[in-house]
């Protein structure tokens, strides 16, 4: 911003086609986008934070019932999905690097891989959801959770209502996470289209970086969701 006063008339003619009219220079535009994205991720932390808070309170209150309900999930599928997402974070890092270096083929390849991994995650999640529907573990009128013992206490049956709270939180938390994945895949498809047309250069690649920040955030949410939802009291 320091030299913005000296750029006079010829400033209008020279500036980068992606520079919007109200910014003085590309660096200011990129810094604004980056700060805006971080603040948006801050709002997302608060959004999921409310759910984590509810989860924490009920997990402390109804630990045994939560453990019983949690162990109906397949930790193997959850672990696989965790691995899938960590790999996708790596491909996103490659995409950002490729955009900064101006390597178009690598950028397109990394974006395609990211999208494929995103769909793989959603596919695995869908099979998990389908299994829950079959077993009547979806909260609501047809919810069933009777005669399931609390882990470590074979003589004690889990409370149906408390288990339903667990599954309600499970579906809302993973459902909102999946919704964020779907939005991310949509954004990455747009990035792929723009990259295909050669829009990103070493000088201008802000959207790829912003997409990267978003994707990493969604991954981090899952890194917390996986142990909290799948691994309660598993050693018993």
């Amino acid at each position, binding site marked *: 911003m320091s030299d913005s006063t000296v750029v006079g008339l010829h400033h209008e003619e020279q500036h980068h086609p992606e520079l919007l009219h109200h910014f*003085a220079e590309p660096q200011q535009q990129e810094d604004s986008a980056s*700060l805006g994205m971080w603040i948006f991720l801050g709002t997302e932390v*608060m*959004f999921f934070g409310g759910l984590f808070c509810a989860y924490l309170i*009920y997990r402390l209150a109804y630990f045994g019932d939560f453990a019983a309900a949690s162990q109906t999930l397949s930790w193997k599928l959850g672990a696989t999905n965790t691995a899938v997402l960590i790999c996708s974070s790596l491909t996103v890092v490659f995409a950002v690097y490729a955009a900064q270096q101006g390597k178009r083929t690598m950028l397109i390849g990394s974006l395609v891989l990211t999208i494929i991994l995103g769909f793989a995650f959603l596919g695995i999640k869908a099979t998990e959801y389908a299994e829950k529907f079959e077993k009547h573990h979806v909260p*609501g009128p047809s919810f069933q959770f009777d005669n399931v013992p609390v882990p470590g206490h074979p003589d004690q049956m889990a409370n149906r209502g408390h288990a*339903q709270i667990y599954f309600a939180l499970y579906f809302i938390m993973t459902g909102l996470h999946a919704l964020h994945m779907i939005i991310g895949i949509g954004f990455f498809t747009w990035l792929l289209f723009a990259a295909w047309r050669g829009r990103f250069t070493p000088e201008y690649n802000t959207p790829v970086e912003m997409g990267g920040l978003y994707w990493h955030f969604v991954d981090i949410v899952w890194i917390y969701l996986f142990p909290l939802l799948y691994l309660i009291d598993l050693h018993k």
Partner: protein
Amino acid sequence: MSMATATIQPVERENYLNKEYGVGSWLFTTDHKRIALLYLISITFFFFIGGFFALLIRLELLTPASDLVQADTYNKLFTMHGMVMVFFFLIPSIPAVLGNFLVPMMIGAKDLAFPRINLLSWYLYIIGGIMMLHCMLTGGVDTGWTFYTPFSTAYSNTKIVEAGLAIFVTGFSSILTGLNFVVTIHRMRAPGMTWSRLPLFIWAHYATSIIQILGTPVIAITIVLVAAERALHLGIFDPRLGGDPLLFQHLFWFYSHPAVYIMILPSMGVVTEIIACFARKRIFGYSFVAFSSIAIAVFGFLVWAHHMFVAGISVYAALVFSLLSYAVAVPSAVKVFNWTATLYKGSIHYDAPMLYAFGFIGLFTMGGLTGLFLAALGIDVHVTDTYFVIAHFHYIMVGGALMGYLGGLHFWWPKISGRLYPEGWARLAALIVFLGFNLTFFPQFVLGYLGMPRRYADYSHMPEFQVLNVLSTAGATVLGVGYLLPMLYFLWSMRYGKPAPDNPWKAAGLEWMTTSPPTTFNFETEPVVTWEAYNYDEIDSAHKQEVKVVG
């Protein structure tokens, strides 16, 4: 004597209003000033809807029996009054109208950092507003604006999910406005506009934005949980299924208490600008006023459970929340003392914006002090859910936030519209609003202290409450006139008002250094700031040699 000196400009210069014409040029604009006007029109619409509900409530309470409306209709009236006023008027009022218009100009920028997101936030507001209108017209909600569970999730037969979704959508409009402001204030300041040279209006909006960004997502997720609970009976907030209704109250007030500061902080920013200008002085203790805004935003997040003292939280928690609530009074009092110190030995002019600012200081102080009564556990138990609480928060939200909003609208109207409003009428309206307000709400303090509960349509078992209720209803009609007047003369001035000079108040601040109304990009050349904020000594010393024309 009005400070406005009308120098008539013969030819109308190009500005943001006359640059383009047609509906499309407004609905697809990304100009922060035009979006501010879109907000001005929409929130005025919702203000009068909310006001209409308020008048019906006051009319019903004119007599002890529930004769104008029945109890369940009355429940809907106060619910819709609260929802419309809080979410569709007070929260967007100053940030979305005056903030949108002024934040870029005050820091010397051409626009907000994300102009298209700014337009998106207006559309989200409108979508939420249409949903709320539809909800209202097809039956409304009767839970009170607080949606307390399990009544809202298991028993009420009204349109809770739709109202919740309307607030959810509008909440994102609020988040995006806050996000835009923070990025703009960090990244778009003109050369030389350092943090310590920012107008205090900007500091107040910065603090407000922090609350919007961090608080609003929590109410969003709370609404998601309420909607899911209501649709599927998950049990999260239902004690029969092991859920905890108190969890709802914690989540709700985690946003809704700081939301009070979303309403009052921008108003404090407006009042600071007005007082410095009409006392012709640099604001006393600039950095204290600036950081007290941040302190209010931070403390505001730590006091929410003072709404739940009788809801069954532990005594120790109540004690801590009571102490923290007292702590919020410190930065608020710092502001009031600094405004008073600014007035001391100032050269005070009693123009309409200043009358509103004086009204603000008095009413906010009363609202704040009665807030301390409510923060004290012993008194709170006695007056919980009485008219004392109603009077207290109306002194803050109407006496505070709305007075600041009207004062700011008058102060910047010459810049917004390029016309001068009629000063005599404006002073009269300010006086009517002040008197009407006190007549409406002061009797409610007494009513509440005597024990009249809130949310009752029928008080025929306590006919001695009628006198004070009649006074309150009479005040509400006076207040209604006081609010109609500015709308009428503002509309009148757009056509018949004298053209405004660029700086009718001889005020400090970058927004007064550009034309009235400004051009689309605000400034001819990017300003370079070399002076401190509120440099009224320098501004006035330039005019000291001039001969004053009297008459």
